[in-house]
């Protein structure tokens, strides 16, 4: 048996659950050569977790896929869609125009101008070219879902541009980016509403996608606003507001399809409507979408506890502003974004919400979703370095036992400082890959 065969047998055995030591003992004559290879194989196999799909992706995308393939096979590609209906009046003219534009895009797209425009910022001569190409891309995207994602992508691009403008001190040009950002957010919401109406099955996943993107953008914008000079604040805050409003609207859209049912069943009094409205406004619902995949269920059960303290701690949000002067560029980024992680918890609350709201009084719903998200924010932002703030947070919650378990959360807040150092995995320090030997040893 050649060494390759021995190695192959050992790798199969590893798959079957045998340990490296056991296999080395079985082939002592090859042990020296086998050991490093088997260790590498074990380590590399452990990397499967690093490239694993996020929780919920497979189920959600399965539904999308099945829906796609169940639909009539009419339009598969852009070209086939373009030529599918040729021959009928205005539509033919429109399609011909699209073809012409596409050809123009091909010409323009391959030119240096188009390429150079990709780095253009608001106020640059080539910036209109960049926006024009984006519009062409949007126009040519026939799938509304893809179009929605494009809008989200472009809105993210605008934020990157704002960041660059800030770095360059070009505050006057921020307005252009903000206006365009608001446009893309509104378009994304329009498409979301349309898609949710057409495909109720996709409502949750699409809403989640929009909400989590907008939440992240709002947080980024808040951070930018906190470090920006005064003359840039207004534009950044306007953009942040657009993102936050977008999150709320998206949640309302996402919940919309469920609403008609109860009204019909109850017999159509004004009351059920009243019970529905309370569920929508709380920011908690926003949070519910943002976090699902991030933190597992255990955290969810804990979050309700902070609810009582929520109102007290809520006000500290201004803590952002104190940071302005103190913190440099990176810190706020992380502290701010800590928000969503707190939000994670409500995922479960979201699903549970609809049922109580319809049958019971609104009072129930109010208690379930409240804004635990906010409670967590202050802790990170206000006091980054010391752990003491957590202590102050706990006393109010003292009535409820789980609060001690909550304390680990502060570790999140500390992370900003840790970020440069990859992660505290045990293993041999030498070599450029500190994480490498994690699973071997």
């Amino acid at each position, binding site marked *: 048996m050649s060494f390759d065969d021995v190695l192959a047998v050992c790798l199969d055995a590893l798959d079957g659950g045998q340990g490296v030591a056991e296999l080395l003992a079985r082939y002592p004559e090859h042990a020296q050569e086998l050991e490093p290879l088997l260790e590498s194989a074990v380590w590399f196999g452990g990397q499967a977790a690093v490239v694993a799909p*996020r929780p919920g992706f497979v189920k959600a995308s399965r539904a999308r896929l099945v829906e796609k393939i169940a639909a009539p096979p009419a339009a598969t590609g852009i070209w086939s869609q373009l030529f599918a209906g040729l021959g009928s009046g205005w539509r033919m003219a429109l399609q011909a125009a699209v073809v012409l534009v596409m050809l123009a895009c091909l010409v323009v797209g391959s030119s240096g101008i188009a390429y150079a425009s990709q780095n253009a910022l608001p106020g640059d001569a080539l910036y209109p070219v960049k926006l024009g190409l984006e519009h062409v891309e949007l126009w040519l995207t026939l799938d509304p879902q893809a179009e929605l994602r494009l809008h989200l992508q472009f809105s993210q691009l605008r934020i990157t541009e704002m960041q660059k403008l800030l770095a360059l001190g070009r505050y006057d040009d921020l307005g252009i980016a903000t206006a365009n950002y608001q446009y893309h957010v509104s378009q994304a919401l329009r498409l979301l509403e349309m898609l949710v109406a057409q495909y109720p099955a996709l409502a949750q996943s699409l809403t989640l996608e929009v909400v989590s993107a907008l939440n*992240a953008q709002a947080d980024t914008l808040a951070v930018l606003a906190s470090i920006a000079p005064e003359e840039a604040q207004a534009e950044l805050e306007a953009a942040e507001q657009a993102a936050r409003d977008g999150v709320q609207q998206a949640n309302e859209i996402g919940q919309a399809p469920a609403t008609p049912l109860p009204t019909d069943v109850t017999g159509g009094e004004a009351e059920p409507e009243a019970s529905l409205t309370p569920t929508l406004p709380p920011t908690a619902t926003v949070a519910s979408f943002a976090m699902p995949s991030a933190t597992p269920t255990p955290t969810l059960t804990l979050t309700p506890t902070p609810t009582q303290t929520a109102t007290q701690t809520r006000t500290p949000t201004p803590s952002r502003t104190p940071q302005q002067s103190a913190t440099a560029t990176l810190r706020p980024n992380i502290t701010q974004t800590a928000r969503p992680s*707190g939000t994670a918890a409500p995922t479960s609350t979201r699903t549970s919400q609809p049922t109580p709201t319809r049958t019971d009084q609104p009072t129930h719903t109010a208690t379930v979703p409240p804004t635990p998200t906010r409670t967590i924010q202050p802790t990170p932002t206000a006091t980054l370095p010391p752990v003491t703030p957590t202590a102050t947070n706990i006393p109010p919650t003292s009535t409820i036992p789980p609060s001690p378990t909550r304390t680990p959360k502060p570790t999140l807040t500390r992370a900003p400082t840790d970020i440069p150092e990859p992660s505290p995995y045990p293993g041999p320090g030498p070599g450029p890959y500190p994480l*490498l030997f994690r699973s071997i040893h």
Partner: protein
Amino acid sequence: MAQPQPVEDIQLIQSSQKGDTQAFGKLYERYAPRVFRYLYAHLDNRLDAEDLTEDVFLRVWKSLGSYQEQGVPFLAFLFRVARNALIDHYRRSSKNQADTSIEDMQLREPGTGPVEAVTALLEHQQLRTMLTELREDYRTVLVLRFLSELSPEETAHAMGRSAGAVRVLQHRALAALRSMMESGPGEV
């Protein structure tokens, strides 16, 4: 050791070939994670990997009619399609590669908190850095065998090589990986 195609797979494939979308959905649920891992190990962006995973299965659905189970295991067929989709994706997006900024992280790692997103990205980037340092066939064999959990025979079919060649290749790839772990990138 050739692994026989699971009976249930054969039934699902046959039903799918007759147009049963739910049967294909089950195949998707069963194999999408492996395809995703293969794709994400080759891509910088999680969202791209998600889109491409769906695209791979759409392609498989369209070409399922021409698939015959004799000879080529379904997984091998699936990963051939995945490989082609990946190549197409590279062609399409080579000019659009953007650098990662911290603001992108949560978008790229949707649904996670900032700390988890950063950690996940660091780990992923480290893996990507290392894989890109490896020869293409080493990278493919490692990813197919250890991340997508294909058998040597399925890997051989997916790569269009003999099982013997894959055995040799995985030996060399593991040795290259080991030496990189010890000495750092650029040495292999």
